[in-house]
Structure formats: structure tokens, C-alpha cells
């Protein structure tokens, strides 16, 4: 039966995240962006909402509730607070979710319990590569077999939390099969060179790094899923859907702020929202935000049913990339001169929103 109402459990979760996003995240977002640091207690509070632990399989002590649909609902709400904080808090999912989905019994038992701790457990994944022509299906990072182990070579970009991450999932082209595989790399592995933090237009609060792999030798058993491997296409779909939902969150932040501002800001004796030129912009923004939210929901719903959601995820993400830029730009425009001032959050949302076409692989549901 067609319905657009989340379950009661999802609604409770959303209420919790919304309180966190509005009370905690929003209060800290400006300073975090300016200083480039997310306060550790903010990350901890976000972590303790328990999104990642609840997705860990039951037999390992989690709740086994890995739902892409719940994931997109949560992702929108977190990103509504702040995108950098959302990506940081959810960064461990980049590792934990693929392992939950495709890990061998041994990989799951060894690696996943750490994500059930109350303390934030920094983990990440490395997909993006430096350069202007990134294609996730044409990776330059290569995994080649050598003497019963695997050797990784190549460079990755925008790897969230790389310096602190205790575990990293590295996506590389399997030299033998040509497919994209994921490899588990632990902190301190020889040959992993982490550069200085990336300097980006947005996401200034999120520590991301360029990482080089120079003859990094790992056990053959470190291949995600062992001999069976993993389904990279499905993982990419989960990432696209997560990012689309986060784009909705960023866009909604800008929309709501601009809407409230336009109702307060008086010019020519009336609130500027009473001009159709402004009101229509806001109406268009609302429609486009809802449109992309539904695209993300539908793709997530298909993922949860175990169906191929490649087309849905792709279209949702492509649409989201354009939508968030347009909405965040309009949000800034409605604030006029104030929109350009960093004291107000709308310019940050435009900078953060602009990044979505390049954030491939930086979020996961």
C-alpha cells in the first residue's frame, strides 16, 4: 500500500535527531566551520543517538536494523543541522555498513563490535581519487595479488577522518578481475601516507585528507567479503541515496531560514515574503525539495526490498546535486546582503551544497 508516513519508531528517531540538529548542531555549526574543528562532545552526542550501532547485526549485539529508508530519514535530519557534522558522525558507517552487508563471518565478528561502544569509533572509507575526471567504476587505485597477500597502490582524496580512523575501507580496482573491490586497512599499515588536511570551499569543519597507498601489503583475507567479495554497485547506490537525502537536509535548512527571514524582513512597509517574486521563489524551493526527498525515499525503499535501485539512486543523486545548489543559492539571494555575510548560515549552506556532485562515497545508508 502506498504511504508516505514514517513508522512510529522512525518518527521517534527523527524527533531525537531533530532535537540534536536544532539544539546542539546548529549552535555549534558556525564556530566549527570557522575554526575547522567539530567539538568532540558534539560528535559524541550525535554518535550516542545510536544510528550506527542499531544497524549492526543482532548476533553481534546490535539491533540489526539496517534500513536504507531509516537511513535517509536520519541523513536528511542530520544534514539539516550541519553537513560537516552529519558526515563526521556518520563516517563510521562508511566502514561498518559495507562490512555488515558483505563481510565474512570472521570480518564481522572481528571488526563490528567496536562500533557498539559508547565512545565514537572513528572509521572511514576511501573512494574518491584526486584529479578532475573521477569515475567510481574506473578507479586508478589498484589491488594486485602478490605472494598470497594483496598489494594496494594509488591515491585517494577527501577521505573523512583519515588521520584518526582506526579502520579504513579502501576501494580499488582488482587487477585480476577488473572489478571494484573493497579492502580493509587498519590504522598504521605500512605504506599508507596521510597528507595534510584538504582545504575545501565548504565542509570546513570536517577533517578530510588525501591518502596515498604505496605498496601497502595486506592479507588476502582483508578483501571485503573474502572470496565472495562485495557488490560495489549496490554500495555505490547506498552512498548516492545517502547523499541525496543529505542534500535535501541542506536545502531544507536554507529554505526554512530564508522563509522565516522573508516573513520578518520589512521593506516598503511589508514583509518581503508578501511579494510574489519572493513567495514564488520559496514555493519553487519547497516543491523541488519535496521532489528530491521522494526520489531518495523511493530509491531507499527499493534498496530495503533487495531490488536493484541503480536507476533510482542515480536519478535521485543527479537531481539532488542540481536542486541543492539552486535552493541554497535562492536562500542566499532572499537574504540579500545579509546572505553574503558569514555571520548568517545561508552562505555556508551554499558552499556545503555545492560539493554534492563531488562527495561520491562520503556517506552511506
Amino acid at each position: 500500500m502506498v504511504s508516505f508516513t514514517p513508522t512510529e519508531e522512525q518518527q521517534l528517531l527523527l524527533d531525537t535527531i531533530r532535537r540534536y540538529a536544532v539544539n546542539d548542531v546548529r549552535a555549534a555549526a558556525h564556530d566549527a566551520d570557522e575554526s575547522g574543528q567539530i567539538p568532540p562532545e558534539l560528535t559524541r552526542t550525535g554518535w550516542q543517538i545510536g544510528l550506527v550501532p542499531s544497524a549492526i547485526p543482532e548476533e553481534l549485539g546490535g539491533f540489526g536494523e539496517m534500513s536504507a529508508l531509516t537511513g535517509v530519514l536520519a541523513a536528511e535530519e542530520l544534514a539539516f543541522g550541519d553537513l560537516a557534522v552529519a558526515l563526521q558522525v556518520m563516517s563510521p558507517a562508511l566502514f561498518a555498513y559495507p562490512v555488515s552487508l558483505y563481510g565474512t563471518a570472521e570480518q564481522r565478528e572481528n571488526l563490528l563490535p567496536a562500533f557498539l561502544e559508547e565512545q565514537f569509533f572513528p572509521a572511514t572509507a576511501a573512494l574518491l581519487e584526486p584529479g578532475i575526471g573521477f569515475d567510481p567504476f574506473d578507479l586508478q587505485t589498484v589491488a594486485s595479488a602478490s605472494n598470497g597477500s594483496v598489494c594496494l597502490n594509488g591515491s585517494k582524496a577527501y577521505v573523512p577522518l583519515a588521520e584518526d580512523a582506526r579502520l579504513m575501507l579502501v576501494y580499488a580496482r582488482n587487477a585480476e578481475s577488473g572489478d571494484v573491490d573493497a579492502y580493509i586497512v587498519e590504522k598504521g599499515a605500512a605504506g599508507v601516507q596521510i597528507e595534510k588536511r584538504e582545504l575545501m570551499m565548504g565542509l570546513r569543519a570536517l577533517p578530510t585528507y588525501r591518502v596515498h597507498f604505496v605498496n601497502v601489503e595486506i592479507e588476502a583475507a582483508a578483501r571485503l567479503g573474502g572470496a565472495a567479495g562485495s557488490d560495489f554497485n549496490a554500495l555505490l547506490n547506498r552512498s548516492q541515496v545517502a547523499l541525496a537525502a543529505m542534500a535535501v537536509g541542506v536545502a531544507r535548512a536554507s529554505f526554512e531560514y530564508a522563509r522565516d527571514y522573508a516573513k520578518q524582513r520589512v521593506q516598503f512597509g511589508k514583509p518581503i515574503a508578501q511579494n510574489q517574486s519572493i513567495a514564488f521563489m520559496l514555493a519553487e524551493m519547497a516543491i523541488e525539495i519535496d521532489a528530491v526527498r521522494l526520489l531518495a525515499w523511493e530509491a531507499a525503499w527499493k534498496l530495503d526490498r533487495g531490488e536493484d535501485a541503480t536507476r533510482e539512486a542515480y536519478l535521485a543523486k543527479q537531481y539532488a546535486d542540481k536542486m541543492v545548489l539552486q535552493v541554497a543559492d535562492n536562500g542566499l539571494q532572499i537574504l540579500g546582503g545579509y546572505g553574503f555575510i558569514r555571520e548568517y548560515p545561508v552562505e555556508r549552506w551554499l558552499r556545503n551544497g555545492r560539493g554534492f556532485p563531488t562527495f561520491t562515497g562520503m556517506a552511506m545508508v
Partner: protein
Amino acid sequence: MAISFEIPEFVQQMAQMAGFMAQTYMRPHARRLDENEHERPKEFVEAMWPILRDQQKATLDKLTAPPANGGDKGGEPKKKRPGTRNLQLMLMIEQLAWGDAGVYLCLPSAGLGGFAIEAVGTTEQKLRLLTRFAEGDQPVWGAMAITEPGAGSDNSSIATTAVFDEEHNQWVINGEKIFITSGKLALEESNGLVIVWATVNKAAGRAGIKPFVVEAGTPGVSIGKVEIKHGIRASDTVSIVFNDARIPADNILGSPEVQASSEDKGFKGAMATFDASRPIVAASALGVGRAALEFVKEKLAENGVEIPYTLPYHKLTAVQRDVLEMEAQWKAAYLLTLRSIAMLDEGLHNSLEASMAKVKAAKACAWIAQKAVEMLGMMGYSREWLVEKWMRDSKIAEIYEGTNQINTLIVARRILDYSRRELA
């Protein structure tokens, strides 16, 4: 509830059935009916009448059946589970509009008039007025008359009057209505009816506007102009002139309380009709959009162009980008429409979502059809193929049931929590 996009099996089958009807009774005649503007879609009407008639009968039977048999009559109202009635309608219309958007408007049924009767009519009125759409061998049409030469989007300035003649216990209607879909079919070519919105008290503004039922054969009612149009040419669009047209006292729609109300309940009834009809207009736009999109993809495939769903944006050709954009726009419009429909079936207030869906679907699908003409070059512009017709047909969805501008205004008022006065 839980978020779900699952269309029940039996609804899917019904939609497939509509698709079959479209394929069989609409597409083969689409070009001919477009070129011969006022010819009636005989094949389609004959095929659809028995189906729609029986559906209408089933709906009416429910009104009179005791509640134990699933009827609405008597007793405490049951707690209703969400139905699928509007969902069925949406998917059916989408399929039929894929067949031909002009021909679909000739569906022999109560149509928009039926929406109004459902929305504000009493049980007695529903039975008395809708039975004609539930029986017989001859098709019957219903229509809705709101627009006037001086009252388009501003339908509160309606000038058609209804005056009560106590001596004869009749309403006397005077005025002119324009742009009435299936008006001629309803009044001259079948034993149908038209819902006419008229004012009983001009000074009262909106509060004075009430819906009246004018039946075929009423003296003083005549068809004025038969419009010739840009698109949806197979659809019958006429003006109706009321010259001391007399109708029975109980042909004012709604309970006596609603009728006597000095508030604008009658007008709100018209608006409630829009909450149900705007998603349907959106659905019809989706049908035309899908026709154009499918056709373009088919022609591109014949020419060796494939549409990838895994390539990064910078590796796509301009044509692939266009098609992907068309697909994303269509899907977004579909989902917004589906949401407004699901809310309607759940009994939730959906004015905002209905207007959002209508704006988005109409705009996206008009754009898709225009893009299709452009992408197919000289063949897109040629009347040899149907693409140019779809572009002309698609335009109407941005206009009727409230222009996109009016619907955008409604969305804006809702999201800003502004009254009509605050945001004009």
C-alpha cells in the same frame, strides 16, 4: 503506517488494463482525431462506457448497502482503512493520457461534475444525480462550469447569477460560462449534467457562490461557442449560455445547511473538488510526458544511443544528459503526484500537496514534450509522428484546474502561512 511505494497488485492490473485500452482504442486514432478536430472518439467511448458505468454503479450500490456489506448507510461510521480509489484513478488516467490526452477527456462519466457531487452532494443528490452514469447503453457525460469571460483564475468574481423563485420553487440561472470540458457532450449529446457555479448574492463575494446542477434538456440553456484549440483537440470545449434557465430547488448542491450558509462553504466545496482533481490533471500530464519520453528513448535506441545510469556526469553526452534530466523530472513529478493521491486516499488534507503535484507535473511534462520535439529534429516537428501533438497536448495541464501561477500562489500561501489578503 510505513513509507511504501508498493502499488497493490490489483491496482497494477487495473492500470495495465487501462494501458491496453489506450493502446487499442486511443493511439490508433490519435492523429485522425487531432486533425479532424470535432470528430468524436467513437471507438474509445464505446469501449469505455460499459466499464465506467459499472464502476459508477458499484460506487452507488455502496451508498445504499447496509454497513455490514461494506456500505455507508446508517449506523456509526466505520473507521476506514485507506482505500485505493484515487490511486486507481491516477494510474488509469496516466495510462489513458499516454494514449491520447484529448481523447481521455472524452471519458463517458460524471467527470469533474462527479467530483463536485461527491465532494458536497447529499446522499439523496448522489443517488438522484449519479444514477444516469450507472445505467443504460448510451454513454452519459458530466461537466463542470466555473470559468467565465471575466472570471478565470479569479473565480470569486463569478457573475452568473442564481435567483430563487419561491412561487415555482425553482432556481433561475443567468449568465455565460466558458471553457467547459465535455459541455456539449453532457448537455446536447447525452442525458448528462453540468455543475454550474453561480452567485446567489454578489455582495457576499465568495460566500454567495454556490454549485447548481443543470441537467440536459433544461430550457434556457444553450451551447455557445465550440472552441478550436492548440492541443487536446479531441476534447469537447464549449461555452454555455444560461438565459432564465430554471432548475428544481433541490438542484443546489449540498445540504440545506451548506446552502444557507453565509460562510463560503459552497466555494470551499469547489476548492475541495480541486484537491481531488489537481492530482488527476497531474496524472494526465504524466501520461503525455511518458509518451514523449518513451518515444524519444525508443528512437535514440534505434540510432544506437543508450542511456547509462552509472556514468559520472562529466562522461555523459549532451543527449544522454537531456534524457536523464527528462527521466528524473518525470519521476519527481510522478512521486509528488503519488503523494498527493495517497493522502487523498488516506483522508488527509492535501491542498498543498495537490498544488505542488500539479505545478510540478504540468511543468515537467510540458518541458519533456518540448524537449522531445527538439531532440527529434525535423521528425519531431513533423505531423507524421505524434511528438508535436504531445507537445501541444501537454501545454493544457499548465493551464486548466488552476494555472501553474495560481497553484504556485497556493503553495506559497501554504508554506508561508499567509491568507489570501496577505499574499495576493
